[in-house]
């Protein structure tokens, strides 16, 4: 998306352009860019974009928040913006007010479970939780004997083992051992772990699509600058065709992710068509991250493989984001089961339902 679609996205774009320039960040070895960026994002109310005003948030629409995530993907932003937005959104489902500061959500994998104990404490383990080490609070979805609950937990009350994701961002293991939540309320009717995973998956899809847009842009620019065999490499047909394929992967990711985001923003229930949109976006965007990222690196040659170059900021994060909130393999199995269960003659009506 070239032009920003709303004032919220424009604000985000401007902050990223001013304070999250990939080149500046890449050469800054001590992370001194992080605090001013987070401060500016917080001042603009973006981390709590999806939280209603009466729950301490800025009350932006789902669509506005999604366009912030697209922009965050285009800048490969490495602060817990998406995570805090998701956490605020999750808490808001149960009308729990969001605290200030960085947050993340647990579980971040469909296979992990956090249980609500009879005494009101929480226990369980969640792996691959993005930015847990950096978070002050964690929004938790827990299952108990009466269904799902949503809780706000202090990160300090959990055991957090730091892990590192492919993109160099924290991807941590969070263990809750009889942790007493700050606040806990029942999840709304019908809201379950799949709901959280689909929402997280759509967020990651938008980020991947954004990163691919940037990879396409910097690859095209590089091919028009780099001279080899006495001409710009953009003049070689093999390079042109590779870039055309990268454009295709970027376009597919963009179409799948924005369609799913639109479906979430305008949906009143988690029906099969909604499931198709969200699961398909995560599957297709993850595939695009693999194919598109490989082409971007191929076009850049050895220089793109260096730590000094910015390409890895996008390519490795896009690859890392595949794993959060259910990988493409996980969602493919789930989607395949749903299609099989509906039966062959219902496949086309499902695909053509929107």
């Amino acid at each position, binding site marked *: *998306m*070239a032009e920003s679609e709303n004032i919220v996205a424009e604000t985000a774009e401007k902050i990223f352009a001013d304070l999250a320039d990939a080149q500046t960040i890449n050469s800054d070895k001590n992370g001194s860019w992080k605090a001013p960026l987070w401060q500016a994002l917080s001042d603009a109310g973006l981390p709590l974009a999806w939280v209603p005003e009466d729950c301490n948030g800025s009350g932006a629409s789902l669509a506005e928040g999604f366009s912030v995530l697209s922009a965050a993907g285009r800048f490969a932003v490495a602060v817990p913006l998406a995570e805090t937005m998701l956490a605020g959104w999750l808490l808001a489902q149960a009308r729990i007010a969001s605290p200030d500061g960085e947050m993340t959500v647990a579980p971040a994998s469909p296979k992990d479970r956090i249980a609500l104990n009879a005494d009101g404490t929480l226990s369980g383990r969640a792996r691959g939780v993005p930015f847990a080490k950096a978070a002050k609070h964690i929004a938790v979805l827990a299952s108990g004997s009466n269904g799902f609950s949503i809780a706000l937990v202090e990160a300090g009350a959990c055991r957090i083992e730091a892990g590192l994701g492919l993109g160099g961002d924290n991807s941590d293991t969070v263990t809750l051992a009889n942790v007493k939540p700050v606040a806990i309320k029942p999840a709304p009717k019908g809201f379950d772990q799949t709901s959280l995973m689909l929402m997280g998956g759509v967020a990651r899809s938008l980020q991947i699509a954004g990163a691919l*847009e940037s990879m*396409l*842009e910097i690859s*095209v*620019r590089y*091919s*028009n600058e780099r001279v080899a065999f006495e001409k710009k490499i*953009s*003049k070689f*047909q093999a*390079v*042109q*065709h590779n*870039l*055309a*394929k990268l*454009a*295709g992967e*970027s*376009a*597919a990711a*963009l*179409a*799948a992710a*924005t*369609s799913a*985001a*639109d*479906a979430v923003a305008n949906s009143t229930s988690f029906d099969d068509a909604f499931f*198709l*949109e969200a*699961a*398909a*976006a995560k*599957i*297709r965007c993850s*595939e695009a991250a693999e194919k598109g990222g490989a082409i971007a690196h191929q076009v850049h040659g050895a220089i793109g493989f260096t730590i000094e170059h910015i390409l890895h900021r996008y390519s490795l994060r896009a690859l890392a984001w595949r794993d959060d909130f259910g990988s*493409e*393999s996980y*969602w*493919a*199995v*789930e*989607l*395949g*089961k749903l*299609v*099989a*269960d509906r*039966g*062959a*003659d219902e*496949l*086309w009506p499902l*695909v*053509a339902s*929107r």
Partner: protein
Amino acid sequence: MTAALRFDPIRLPPECEKLRKEVRAFLADEIAAGTFDPHKPNREDTDAPEFSRRVGERGWLGMTWPKKYGGHERSFLERYVVTEEMRVANAPTRRFFVADRQSGPVLLKYAPEHIKMDILPRICRGEVCFAIGMSEPNSGSDLFAAKTKATKTDGGYLINGTKIWTSSAHIADYMIAIFRTSPPTKENRRHGLTQFLVKMKQPGIQVNPIGQITGQYEFNEVVFTDYFVPDDHVLGEIDGAWKQATSELAYERSGPERFLETYYVLTELVRAVGKNPDTRSAEGIGRLVAQLHTMRRMSVSVAGMLQAGKEPVVEASIVKDIGTVWEQQLPHRVRDLAAFVEENATNRETLENQLSFAIKTAPKLTIQGGTTEVLRGIIARGLGLR
């Protein structure tokens, strides 16, 4: 800065869903009446003229054209829905599809009024079949290498030369063709081609069928020997067909027919796998459905842009590139997964027959209507690389 790609999440409006139900009901009746078998994509060259007329009667031809020419002034998105449903049902659309998608719009833009008044209403009634005369021996996707000559004579032109790979020429009533009216110039190798409306089944035209590896006879060699075309059958600008022909190709790039050609094998796989698939089958089907859904979202998005009067040339080329590569790979992926289907699956024979035909069909899908290589060149141009 790269020209940003746009694929807005266009949704089909409610009138499309109503129309979709009508089309499905119509097709179900046709299947029940034995007009065609949806499980047999390799039907014996039937072009079903009666079926075409009935589609015309329902108002599903020339849907977006002005009423004065027999059209229905409906939206591109409504037409999109009809195309989807016809394709998915394996309906025999050969007789009308080219006229409806491509030739009619060209006539609307470039033909003189009396020809529009004569031919367009007949297309809308499903009475006429069109072929497209672009490729020639040794030209193919290189449109501007065409040599077939149109020489000026009294009241018209004499045509001499050969067109090839011309789908449906053996049943067509008309062909829209490009012929060379003057040599290319040094500055512009695209110069010198003119677009003509050609009446088939006239002296001076010989149509020779060319067999395909699928066993079908669909395309032809068309030989012109002193064939006369009157002046009022010139379409558009003399020597300027290249602009017209390239915009005509935009119509044939992004439609649902560009990713649904082998769709039937996926349905049959789901049928064979049954309600409780193993993990491998479930994952394979899930991925294919995710890819199909994404293709369709891209294609609907482009239809929305066409409806809004935009010219999404790069986006349309991307849809055709990804779509045709996908529909080409689909039968092979389905074959991989079908290896694990139970021996006693009730539709096993149908699945095997369909796979065999789809695998034979697959190689042509990335060739017809502009090869993958040509499309990637267009995309590269759009990216600012050429």
